[in-house]
């Protein structure tokens, strides 16, 4: 099969736009500095480059062919050095389709095929027709399932009747984000921590503003600062909301057998599949705002993407916003974890944070005082003292949101106040277990355990600051659980 003929003009346009700026700058420089005939030569050079680009893209298009066989995806490509690839469908992790505004107007789409090996996307088909993209996505899924069905038909027959039944049926909608919830999700997506940047940055910013506003009287100055800070916060909020709105517009999650399929996006439309069998970690994410209103989001990590290379620039969000109960139900549906009643961290962890934050707050106050006395008079430097009052509160909340539950089936680790993340790791997905004790942790008899999996998106699943003896027990539980799983799978 060939790529869609329109992909030639599309790719030429895309390359031309990305070089366009350089050309414009070059031309502008040339026309002002060069005499007439040189100007002509420069223009000719640009036309020549454009022709070369068109020729190259035509050649690429002519020499690129793909074919989907019963068990492999074959790609032959390359103009000067030819490259033939056969990708076993069993190794394919994700098939993603994205369509930006231009592509939607032309009726074409980009298809990305991810495998677990290597850092980058294995196959990029740029571009095929929209119908062909859909066909590839469903066909690869079907062929994969057929191949898998042959090898472990016995397993499907004995176990999981519900999954096998679902596999046969049509895709069912698992979750849909309606407009009201999309707006809500956009509004709640703001990371409140960003607002604190102003507070931390004030000693650095003030020396530059001192000349402008130093003349204002005390009360007026306070009002000016408050209004400025509010404007910055609102702008950040709006930007964050807009980003979320564009990203998750028209979000829909469907399930066909062992695959989740999502579609989303306002300007650029993404559809992709998330294979549940390759699921590495399920992450329930709740920001402060979301927690306050009883909402949460859910992310599913699979082995397909290298860190940060997913289409959403991180782990694939399976559900951007739903009520906490819905999210937990879906999480359990994907990975049957029991009740999330997590064991708290020991109270000496809280004392550790108290010390740590006290040092940080002291440093901030010292900085503000330093600017005031050494660099430039700074009217509200003592406001930094408020940080000291916040220290015990911060330490308490950081401690309160720590939790863990580890048994032979799952490791659950929760942490974070601003964005609380609850990682659920199936024990049979564990790659390595790393136990760490820093110098400060050793003083308190505490340790942290990182449970590493092949999914590497939104942070590590880490049990932070538990009793050192408990940490050792945790490592033993996880490794023993993994061993048991492997024995069961083989037996």
């Amino acid at each position, binding site marked *: 099969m060939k790529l869609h003929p329109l992909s030639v003009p599309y790719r030429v346009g895309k390359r031309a736009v990305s070089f366009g700026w350089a050309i414009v700058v070059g031309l502008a420089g040339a026309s002002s500095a060069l005499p007439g005939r040189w100007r002509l030569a420069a223009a000719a050079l640009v036309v020549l480059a454009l022709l070369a680009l068109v020729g190259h893209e035509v050649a690429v298009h002519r020499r690129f062919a793909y074919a989907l066989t019963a068990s492999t995806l074959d790609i032959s490509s390359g103009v000067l050095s030819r490259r033939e690839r056969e990708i076993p469908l069993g190794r394919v992790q994700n098939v993603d389709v994205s369509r930006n505004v231009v592509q939607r107007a032309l009726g074409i789409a980009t298809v990305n095929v991810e495998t*677990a090996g290597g850092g980058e996307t294995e196959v990029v088909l740029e571009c095929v027709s929209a119908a062909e993209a859909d066909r590839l996505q469903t066909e690869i899924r079907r062929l994969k399932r057929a191949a898998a069905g042959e090898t472990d038909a016995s397993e499907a027959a004995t176990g999981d009747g519900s999954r096998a039944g679902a596999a046969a049926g049509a895709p069912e909608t698992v979750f849909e984000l309606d407009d009201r919830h999309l707006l809500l999700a956009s509004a709640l997506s703001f990371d409140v921590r960003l607002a604190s940047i102003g507070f931390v940055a004030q000693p650095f910013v003030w020396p530059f503003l001192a000349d402008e506003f130093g003349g204002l009287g005390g009360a007026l100055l306070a009002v000016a600062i408050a209004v400025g800070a509010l404007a910055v916060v609102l702008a950040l909020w709006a930007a964050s909301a807009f980003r979320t709105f564009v990203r998750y517009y028209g979000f829909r999650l469907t399930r066909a057998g062992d695959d989740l399929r999502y579609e989303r996006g306002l300007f650029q439309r993404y559809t992709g599949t998330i294979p549940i069998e390759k699921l590495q970690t399920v992450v329930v994410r709740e920001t402060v705002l979301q927690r306050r209103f009883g909402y949460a989001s859910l992310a599913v990590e699979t082995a397909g993407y290298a860190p940060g290379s997913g289409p959403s620039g991180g782990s694939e969000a399976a559900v951007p916003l739903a009520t906490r109960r819905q999210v937990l139900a879906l999480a359990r549906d994907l990975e049957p974890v029991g009740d999330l009643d997590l064991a708290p961290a020991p109270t000496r962890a809280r004392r550790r944070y108290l010390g740590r934050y006290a040092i940080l707050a002291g440093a901030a106050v010292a900085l503000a005082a330093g600017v005031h006395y050494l660099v430039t008079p700074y009217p509200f430097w003592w406001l930094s003292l408020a940080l000291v009052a916040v220290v015990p509160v911060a330490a308490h909340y950081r401690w309160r949101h720590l939790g863990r539950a580890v048994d032979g089936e799952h490791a659950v680790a929760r942490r974070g106040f601003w964005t609380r993340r609850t990682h659920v790791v199936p024990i049979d997905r564990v*790659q*390595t277990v*790393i136990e*760490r004790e*820093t*110098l400060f942790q050793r003083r308190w008899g505490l340790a942290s355990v990182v449970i*590493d999996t*092949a999914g*590497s998106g939104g942070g590590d699943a880490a049990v932070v600051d538990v009793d050192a003896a408990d940490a050792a027990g945790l490592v033993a539980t996880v490794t023993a659980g993994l061993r048991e799983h492997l024995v069961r799978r083989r037996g």
Partner: protein
Amino acid sequence: MEDLHPRVRLLWTAGAFVAAAVLGAIAGALAWFDPLSLSLPPLAVAGTVFGVAFVVGVTYAALRYRLWRFEVREDTLYIERGVVTRVRTVVPYVRVQHVDNRRGPLARLLGLGTVVVYTAGSRGADVSVPGLAAERALALQDRLRDLAIESDPTDAV
């Protein structure tokens, strides 16, 4: 539990020497150009910084050697290390993707080698055993490879 080869201290000491020399040179250059006009003798500053950094480096190397341990267990590789932050890593053989043997120029001179174990995990490349006698490194590589092959035929994801 197995210790590293004692010669690895020499390797690490050489590293500490280079780092101390660089630090000393920077301190000396700073004293020479003297931006804060403290007018300190550059040579003495360079010498002192180098001396302190080297002593710290050597002590660190000695402690690091003393705390480094690993064990080839029945179905996992266990590694214990770290002076400031103690780290204990458990790598099940099922998860091993491949095993490398690495030897830098100085390590070759000292007859040492490093075994690096790769997993599919995001921290896969973290797992390495430095400073083994060359033949021990080869033997460990072979052993880990065999254990990885015999432990499971399915993909390590």
